[in-house]
């Protein structure tokens, strides 16, 4: 301060009111004497990102469990290992959805008029990737499910036309937002069934409390009509998780806590259970999938990456200590890769030359790995408190559609 005060008094500024604009930002001519040129006066700039999200950028969701009001998504460049920016969420932050062109992030948010109390407002906000500024906003019924993050509670139709928001009050319903017109379509009752797993531009499956699946369609105006229902496909003793894996346009793998896999196809509008197999083989009954995001499917290669740990019933949120890799078409495991740090979330980029990502809830660190052997390429640290789910952006040719 001494130097500041003296310097500024010498310059006749007192406590100076200095313009740092381009008006006076031109670099000064260096005085005669010193050998090193004087630093130029700088303009302030604001960073812009890209128009579309590159395949190796990643959205890292932080639910901030100890300060649930301030959930957020971080954007990182996994090739460079750099932090690029942040998109604010809200109370009980679930995640974002990418517009199919990768140019916009749709962010569901829940806010209270007085922080953690007062009138509740739920909104969908569009953030352009380019400037990460809050753009259009659609107010939706303040009923969005508040839970540990599940991306299937906030899906976007494949063409980006509609966003679906699962409500739990505890009545169960689905809010539909027209993402093109940016307005609310309406709220539709879905008694007894939850979440939306997209099986086409205008169709999806829901999971119901008795272990059955419910088919549903959207019409061109976004109105939901419930369709066929299956018999209960899963036991109450070993339910399918609420984190199924999309392996084709209309095909999903439902995987139970114990690792039993059932492929279900909704192409016909009636969910049809197909192949049934298990993640574990003989002598591996002690191993289970676990975590907040235990599965990542890479459509170009048809490979499924699963976080596995040793543990019994009730350990479905335990972090994985190995990544098991499966060829879904052949229903076979092709690799078993121990990892040096346990992980509760796994994701893989959607391009042909992918990066594999893992994160452990509470670590604030994303580990970037080689898919072939899970070896560590780099780590991105300081990513907040409570990483829940990781989200790789879509690539030019939608992976899910291509795989069918």
């Amino acid at each position, binding site marked *: 301060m001494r130097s500041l005060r003296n310097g500024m008094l010498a310059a006749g500024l007192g406590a100076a009111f200095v313009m740092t604009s381009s008006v006076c930002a031109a670099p000064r001519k260096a005085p005669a004497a010193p050998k090193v040129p004087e630093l130029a006066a700088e303009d302030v700039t604001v960073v812009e990102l890209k128009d579309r999200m590159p395949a190796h950028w990643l959205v890292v969701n932080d639910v901030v469990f*100890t300060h649930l009001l301030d959930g957020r998504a971080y954007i990182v460049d996994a090739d460079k290992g750099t932090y690029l920016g942040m998109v604010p969420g809200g109370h009980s932050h679930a995640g974002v959805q990418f517009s199919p062109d990768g140019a916009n992030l749709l962010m569901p948010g829940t806010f*209270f008029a007085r922080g953690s109390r007062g009138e509740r407002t739920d909104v969908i906000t569009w953030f352009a990737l380019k400037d990460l500024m809050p753009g259009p906003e659609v107010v939706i019924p303040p009923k969005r*499910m*508040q839970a*540990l993050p599940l991306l299937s509670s906030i899906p976007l139709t494949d063409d980006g036309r509609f966003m679906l928001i699962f409500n739990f009050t505890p009545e169960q319903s689905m809010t539909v937002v027209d993402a093109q017109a940016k307005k609310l379509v309406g709220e539709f009752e879905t008694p007894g069934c*939850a979440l939306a797993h997209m099986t086409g531009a205008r169709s999806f499956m829901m999971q119901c*409390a008795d272990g059955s699946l419910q088919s549903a369609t959207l019409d061109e105006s976004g109105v939901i009509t419930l369709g066929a229902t299956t018999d209960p496909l899963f036991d109450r003793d070993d339910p399918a998780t*609420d984190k199924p894996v999309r392996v084709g346009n209309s095909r999903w793998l439902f995987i139970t806590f114990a690792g039993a896999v059932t492929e279900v196809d909704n192409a016909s509008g009636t969910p049809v259970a197909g192949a049934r197999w298990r993640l574990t083989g003989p002598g591996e009954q002690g191993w289970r999938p676990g975590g907040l995001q235990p599965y990542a499917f890479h459509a170009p290669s048809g490979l499924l990456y699963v976080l596995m740990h040793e543990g019994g019933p*009730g350990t479905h949120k335990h972090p994985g200590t190995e990544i098991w890799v499966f060829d879904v078409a052949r229903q076979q495991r092709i690799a078993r890769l121990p990892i040096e740090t346990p992980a509760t979330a796994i994701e893989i980029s959607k391009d042909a030359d992918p990066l594999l990502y893992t994160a452990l809830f509470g670590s604030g660190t994303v580990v970037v790995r080689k898919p072939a052997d899970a070896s560590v390429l780099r780590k991105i640290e300081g990513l907040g408190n409570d990483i829940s789910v990781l989200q790789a952006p879509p690539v030019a040719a939608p992976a899910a559609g291509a795989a069918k």
Partner: protein
Amino acid sequence: MRRFDRAAEYLARTAARSTSRRGFIGRLGAFVTATGAATLLPVSRVRAEKAAVPIQVHEEGDPNSCDYWRYCAVDGFLCSCCGGSASSCPPGTEPSPITWLGTCRNPADGRNYVISYNDCCGKAACGRCNCSRDEGATPVYQPSTANDLDWCLGTQVGVAYHCSLSVVTGLAD
């Protein structure tokens, strides 16, 4: 699509005994009939007490520790560490009227008890004694036994989650 179970029958009997919550129960009808059930706690009857109610005389263990027997299926901040106890909400919060159930074995008597995991609500997250045990917890599409859900949804004060109780409701068998 008929997903009715014995819970609805039980509800009908129980609701008849509680006049004060009929309006609320009525709203729950579709949910209960369709998906199973959840614990209903009549918030209008919740007592305010000068102190947190301690554990019972025939219990053992430290209710501020995640290892405490009642917490076998909890996922959240323990109200015991937040100014409350296993059955008392901290001051300035409201217990959730509905929630989900777990069953835990009390090591002191060897019996299994049904534990009600009501949330205390309306205040920013407590942040103390985070405890996740998940024994018996189901996916969110089976909400009556799901601990990933914020159960504050039935409160007057809104869904802001503060901490979780673990209340003895009776013998499991």
